[in-house]
């Protein structure tokens, strides 16, 4: 546990999670969805959390905002303990931190028009009178580049991209400082993804937001994120500045993950080396002993199966949890 200052000063990190664990009790046994994650997101960062399906990234995002209660661990947001803050000042917390769901349609009431959906957060927080609220809704539409004509439509009559824009606009209605997005792109067509990604980048530049985005599309994370966390089986495999991690990944898992990203250049695409990992990720009910990646790692050594590596600084300035990676060198596969 670190000693986090209980102030909302400009120097505190946007997110500081320590020893976060989220375990689910299921009929088949204990699922360790998130199993001891430390995460720091600086203010103004565009932070990506990546990893394959089932690695716990969505659970982590939900635990950060409190949609999922943590089994163990503590989350500080802007220097304040999240649980205490949300309990003492539910609305204040909501004004500071907002969440964007993976499924925009499900996250909106099917009975409310887009206008009502966008107005709802303003009503909950008693912001402005009718006229002021309508003006704010108009502003939000402009922000996410939606035409005024969508206001009277129901969410289900919108296209996927429009729905996601509405859900982004709703999250922005309260002018939050921190936006946590759970796979905001995975429900969208590739062509629409680019629009939404650009929208995120533009909003961040315009509004000075801190954005945390959970994604499995690495190409997009590489494009827009300033920092990145790579997760594997409920733990952080590697973290650091996005550019550094993507250009010189230290963890074998990151290397494998990045080698799966297609290149837009057909020549490089045809010749680039690929690392194929054998098998599926192990079940989070029953992680392998030692390093969690040891069961699939191409450069595994005997010590990997015995001791679990801790995050330590590596050459690119970030950190990786690999016995073969330290500040001087790391394994290449």
């Amino acid at each position: 546990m670190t000693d986090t200052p209980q102030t909302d000063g400009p120097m505190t990190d946007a997110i500081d999670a320590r020893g976060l664990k989220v375990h689910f009790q299921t009929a088949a046994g204990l699922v360790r969805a998130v199993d001891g994650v430390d995460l720091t997101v600086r203010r103004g960062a565009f932070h990506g959390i990546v990893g394959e399906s089932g690695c716990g990234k969505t659970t982590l995002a939900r635990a950060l905002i409190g949609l999922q209660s943590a089994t163990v661990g503590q989350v500080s947001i802007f220097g304040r303990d999240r649980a205490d803050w949300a309990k003492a000042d539910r609305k204040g917390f909501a004004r500071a931190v907002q969440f964007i769901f993976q499924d925009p349609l499900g996250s909106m009431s099917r009975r409310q028009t887009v206008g009502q959906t966008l107005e709802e957060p303003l009503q909950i927080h008693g912001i402005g009178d009718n006229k002021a609220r309508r003006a704010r809704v108009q502003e939000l539409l402009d922000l996410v580049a939606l035409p005024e004509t969508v206001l009277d439509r129901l969410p289900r009559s919108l296209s996927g991209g429009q729905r996601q824009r509405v859900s982004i606009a709703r999250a922005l209605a309260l002018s939050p400082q921190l936006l946590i997005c759970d796979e905001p792109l995975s429900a969208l067509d590739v062509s629409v993804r680019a629009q939404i990604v650009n929208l995120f980048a533009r909003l961040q530049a315009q509004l000075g937001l801190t954005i945390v985005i959970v994604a499995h599309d690495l190409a997009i994370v590489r494009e827009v994120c300033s920092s990145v966390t790579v997760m594997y089986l409920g733990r952080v495999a590697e973290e650091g500045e996005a550019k550094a991690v993507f250009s010189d990944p230290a963890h074998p898992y990151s290397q494998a993950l990045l080698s799966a990203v297609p290149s837009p250049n057909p020549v490089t695409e045809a010749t680039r080396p690929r690392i194929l990992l054998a098998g599926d990720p192990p079940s989070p009910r029953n992680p392998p002993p030692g390093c969690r990646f040891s069961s699939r790692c191409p450069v595994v050594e005997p010590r990997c199966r015995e001791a679990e590596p801790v995050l330590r600084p590596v050459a690119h300035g970030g950190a990786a949890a690999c016995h073969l990676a330290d500040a001087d060198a790391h394994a290449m596969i």
Partner: protein
Amino acid sequence: MKNWPWAILAPAFIFVLIGIFSPWLMTHDPAAQDYAALLEGPGWAHWLGTDYLGRDMFSRIIGGARTSLVAMVFVLVAALAIGVVIGSFAGYVGGKTELVLISVIDIALALPSLVIALALMGVFSGANFDWMSDYWKMIVALTMAWWANYARMSRAVVVAELQQPYIEAARVMGASHIWIFTRHILPHVLGLVVVYASADAGALVLAIATLSFLGLGVAPPTPEWGQMLVDGMSYIEENAALVIIPGLALTAVVVSFNLLGEAFALQKVPRAVRGRLLSRKKAARAAEEVARKVVEA
């Protein structure tokens, strides 16, 4: 319903209209006795004839419509309110509270509502309840017998809606429980419950008539269809209209309300519930289909 003419719904609307405007529609005082005209058939002086005390049947049918309508509205509103409150509370709060409330609801549902109403009328006949008129006893008894269905439905809707991601989204926006319930969940609950109530109204009119038929409901001077049936039975050989007319009125209203509920259901109720409401009809249609194919073959 698609194949039925909309006119089939007319009795329900006529019933409501007559109930509302009955004082202006009655040609005679429904309680006035005329010993010069006992058990008369339909005619100019008494359009639908007279009963064994010489009371005007037309006025009594119309007065009975108001009695039924008022009692029905009281019971429906009270049962709906109690059911929605208890059911929604159980569904929203969950845990042990829910378990206890569900048990109560299940017990209430396990007994036929008419049996509960009869038992309560028996309890209410004790001296402790003399302060209540028979009319109010009947309304309270029927309400206690009727709320459980609404509670069960309300709870089901609340539980289903609470699992929707948009409820989580509202939480993230900082909405209070009261906001989430009134703004997002209650409309769904009422949407379903009101539709069900429209079909239930007919059953309730029948239950009111049944209690009166058994001599437990509305006290004699007030005109009531069930009572008219029981009074008329003794004179069925002299004047069959005494039984046929209230019987027809009752049948028309019950059928008509059922169809009204079905009409709502087809357009408003979620498919899963709609399926249950119409399962019998669907089964009949499927049987027809099979029969037709067999004939063709």
